């Protein structure tokens, strides 16, 4: 039995295995530290951070659905400087790569948060969440309008030397367009997918289940959607893809890798079972070993179509 090589690279980040956690499902780092040896993870991706502190949505903020959940947390957070002060010291005692998820309401916002986070050495990469409405342009989404999308990626690219990973919005007719645009604008990687715009209504009160009315669907329910998007994007870009959407078993992770992802993120499944990410890592290693596959890289994108 060989010991497979689990290492993957996203830009300049070396992940010792292909498993990170999905932004917003793992807090800012310390929250799960009692349950998970953080240094076992390939990387930690923290909750979305903007340049300024942000208050987020009213409650209820989440709602459970069939094999999934809706969330409309609304990106509350301490802002980029607040994050660095409050949470970076915590990470000094860990060696795990730190990916900070960032967002903004304007193109300049995206630039500012990238600029602030370009400073601290402990921040290893930025993941850029483009599923936000653009307040200046009347709410069009950065993630579904390819021109706005490019302007965000360009801006972030110009403000940081660190690897940037663009997290694509799933609700587009043609994901390839956005994947290629991200690569062309100098992104080091792509994350697919964010939660899918969705809604639930309480029939007794006739009110939406979320204070924000609509939210994002995540969990096993969306895995087949994410799989197709990863597969399509992998056909048109050379930069690595982080696949996510319903990963809860090693088999789910392997499926994303075979579809074309270089790494995966565990999101909603952290809530079901905080040890999911570690279980996924161990399972990938065992499976590769049993199949005598030398490395994760050898599996990436090997789907036979």
């Amino acid at each position, binding site marked *: 039995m060989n010991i497979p090589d689990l290492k993957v690279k996203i830009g300049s980040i070396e992940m010792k295995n292909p498993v990170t956690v999905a932004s*917003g*499902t*793992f*807090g800012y780092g310390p*929250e*799960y530290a*009692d*349950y998970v040896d953080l240094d076992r993870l390939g990387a930690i991706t923290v*909750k979305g951070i903007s340049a300024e502190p942000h*208050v*987020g949505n009213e*409650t*209820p*903020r*989440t*709602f*459970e659905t*069939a*094999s*999934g*959940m809706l*969330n409309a*947390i609304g990106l*509350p957070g301490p802002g980029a400087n607040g994050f660095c002060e409050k949470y970076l010291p915590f990470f000094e005692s860990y060696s795990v790569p730190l990916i900070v998820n960032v967002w903004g309401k304007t193109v300049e916002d995206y630039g500012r948060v990238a600029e602030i986070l370009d400073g601290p050495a402990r921040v290893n990469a930025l993941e850029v969440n483009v599923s936000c409405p653009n307040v200046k342009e009347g709410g069009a989404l950065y993630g579904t309008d390819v021109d706005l999308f490019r302007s965000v990626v360009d801006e972030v690219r110009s403000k940081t030397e660190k690897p940037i990973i663009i997290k694509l919005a799933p609700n587009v007719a043609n994901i390839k367009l956005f994947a290629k645009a991200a690569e062309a604008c100098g992104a080091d990687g792509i994350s697919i997918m964010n939660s899918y715009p969705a809604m639930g209504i309480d029939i007794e009160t006739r009110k939406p289940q979320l204070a924000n009315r609509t939210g994002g669907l995540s*969990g*096993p329910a969306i895995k087949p959607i994410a799989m197709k998007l990863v597969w399509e994007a992998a056909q048109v870009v050379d930069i690595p893809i982080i696949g996510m959407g319903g990963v809860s078993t090693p088999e789910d992770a392997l499926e994303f890798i075979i579809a074309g992802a270089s790494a995966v993120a565990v999101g*909603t*499944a*952290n*809530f*079901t*079972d*905080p*040890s999911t990410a570690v279980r996924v890592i161990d399972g990938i290693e065992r499976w590769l070993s049993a199949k005598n596959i030398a490395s994760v890289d050898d599996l990436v994108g090997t789907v036979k179509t």
Partner: protein
Amino acid sequence: MNQEKTIVLEHRCFQGNYRLIKLAAPTIGPLVQPGQFVHLRVPRLENAVLRRPFSVFKADDVGLSILYATVGLGTEALTSVAVGEEVSLLGPLGTGFPGVGKDKFPVLVAGGYGNAALYLQAKVSPVKGVAFFGGRSAQDILCVDEFEALGWDVRVTTDDGSLGAKGLVTDALDSWLEGEKDVASASLELFACGPNGMLKAVGDRALGNGFAAWLSMDRNMACGVGACLTCVIKRKTETGWEWARCCKDGPVFEASEILW
């Protein structure tokens, strides 16, 4: 905080719509503080991605028990879990009740499964005071004997008068407070768990009378450990308010902290 695979030791109807489940939890059991909760994965409920939070009713070195009402998908599925089955728990979670203050006279106020959240507090309290239990009808009033056995003076109210006085638990509390006017309010300390409306009403009494009321709040939860920001509650600050996490900073908050 731990994640533990526990084994069902006992599982039975407790009263009315309430069931008692007792779990062998040698790691979590001994750590539980009054007012803390566990986050339970309902076995075989494969279409649910979320755990369910339950107050710890009783706990010891062997394990812990939960008293739950069947109200939806998860709790209904939970009823089919058999003795000997495995149940995954995270816990003990959250910030529970503080110890009863020195020289304070403790008052408990509970609605429905609120009694479960208060039992451990009642047990460790050095002084046994008055306990007000309210519910819709007789079958929602749990564990009166057990609280009496601990030495508490239990007063029951039901909406329909089927047990104790007819009316709201806060009516009973009000008339008691009225009668105790001579007792300095400042010497009272309230501990409450129940529906939000009740908690707010109790909190108002505390604010109005200048005593502390520790309220165990119920919010929908996803992670249960402070990571997802689902369960937030508005907590007053000097300049306004901030979000506090019910699962981590709570579920117990002092009434004057809360911005309703």
